[in-house]
């Protein structure tokens, strides 16, 4: 067993939005270098959880970040206004100026996600899904975060692009020694990359390593009845 320091410790976290319980009594912890994947059906509070961890929503319970943690956040697909004359470079420069990072960090962030300066000068509304996602990741990487919060990294990307984003994420974790919290709908990603999985349906349905936390029973409880996710589970056992 490793004994790495906890990067984030969450105990009995509850969030009420508009009089409804969006999250109740959620508890989990994540150690340095781990990849926590959050799964759950639509409306189960996955995005609410990330936004709460970032301090955007009022909550009760404990959220304790390691004091040395620097957080990078990649939000769910932003509907980039096609008419906005704002490029990736504009966004990165703006963040660098506000947080007083040197300009060299901008090029480094672009390089890390594999975007050329030419693409970085195109208005964000004109980028492809994959390029746009890379731009968002570059924005999150600026300032050398120690932990990356990633909301549905592949929500608007085609299959091959999806694979590239996952590979990129994996490579960045090595390069930056990142801890990652990822919301995903993709169970094969959970089995390949997650060290921990959190199943959410407004409450904690499961938490632990994918092997101990996920079984068919659990998925049935989580998603309600027989489900296409079983195929992923099935595929996985064959391919690995």
């Amino acid at each position, binding site marked *: 067993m490793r004994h790495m320091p906890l990067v984030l410790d969450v105990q009995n976290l509850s969030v009420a939005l508009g009089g409804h319980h969006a999250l109740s009594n959620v508890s989990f912890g994540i150690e340095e270098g781990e990849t926590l994947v959050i799964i759950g059906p639509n409306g189960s509070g996955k995005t609410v959880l990330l936004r709460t961890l970032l301090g955007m929503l009022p909550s009760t319970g404990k959220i304790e970040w390691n004091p040395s943690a620097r957080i990078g956040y990649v939000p769910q697909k*932003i509907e980039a206004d096609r008419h906005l004359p704002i490029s990736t470079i504009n966004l990165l420069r703006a963040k660098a100026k506000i947080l007083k990072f040197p300009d060299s960090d901008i090029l480094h962030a672009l390089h890390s996600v594999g975007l050329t300066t030419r693409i970085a000068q195109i208005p964000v509304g004109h980028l492809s899904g994959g390029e746009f996602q890379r731009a968002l990741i570059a924005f999150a990487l600026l300032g050398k975060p120690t932990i990356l919060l990633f909301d549905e990294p592949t929500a608007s990307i085609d299959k091959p692009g999806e694979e590239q984003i996952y590979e990129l994420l994996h490579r960045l974790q090595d390069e930056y020694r990142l801890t990652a919290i990822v919301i995903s709908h993709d169970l094969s990603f959970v089995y390949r990359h997650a060290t921990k999985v959190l199943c959410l349906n407004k409450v904690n349905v499961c938490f632990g390593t994918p092997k101990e936390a996920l079984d068919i029973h659990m998925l049935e409880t989580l998603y309600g009845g027989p489900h296409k996710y079983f195929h992923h589970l099935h595929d996985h056992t064959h391919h690995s």
Partner: protein
Amino acid sequence: MIPPSFYAITLAIFAAAAAGLVGSFALMKRTVLAGDVISHIAIPGLGLALIWNINPLVGGATTLLIGTIIIWQLEKKTSLSSEAAIGVIFSSSVALGALLINSNEELIDALFGGFGILSYGEFTFGIVASMFVIATLLILRHKLIIGLFSEDLAVATKINTRILHLVFLLVFALTVLLGLRFLGALLAGSLIIIPASAARQFSHTLGMFLSLSMLIAVLSVGIGFAVASIYSLSTGPTIVMVAAVFFILSLARKTK
């Protein structure tokens, strides 16, 4: 002896540069129309100032400030009822203004610009306020850019978006106030909207968009003053028509 029109034109050009810059951000933030209705609430202020015999701009500034804070509060709720409330407040303020201002001539001044000779104090205030608007936006541009791209990313970058938006609306209101003098309450918003809309069609980069928007606003004012004096037309509406011509030209270019 410098002719009085020199002061008026100089001030108008400074105000136009500020309006062009404010407009480009308003266009990107998509708050153009919410901002435009702000100008309408200046009208009852102008009316009260005329009744109490104080400087109309002081009255306009007072109600503009109140209107801005009301909009800021209402925008917090994105429900239909708050949008309706904004609409009701501002159309009724036009009506209230019209009732308060009982001379037709003064009403026309309030709606389309006028109010006699520019005082030295007004001139100085106008120049300082224009430069203040431009400086504020240039300082805040990085935060505004991230904020208008994504509220979430702005919050994650530790930007207080609520306060940022309030500052933007106040700067917008100050720009409307600057335009009130020579464009009037109905047209003060147009020098904010039209040059930015035209510049947007011509430009592909942020830097070009911001500078072109300011340039088109300044050119509209310059050409507008010249045309109005040659053909003895009202200055405010002429300026707005020149800006509209720029916009039509930009549309023609876009369709190419």
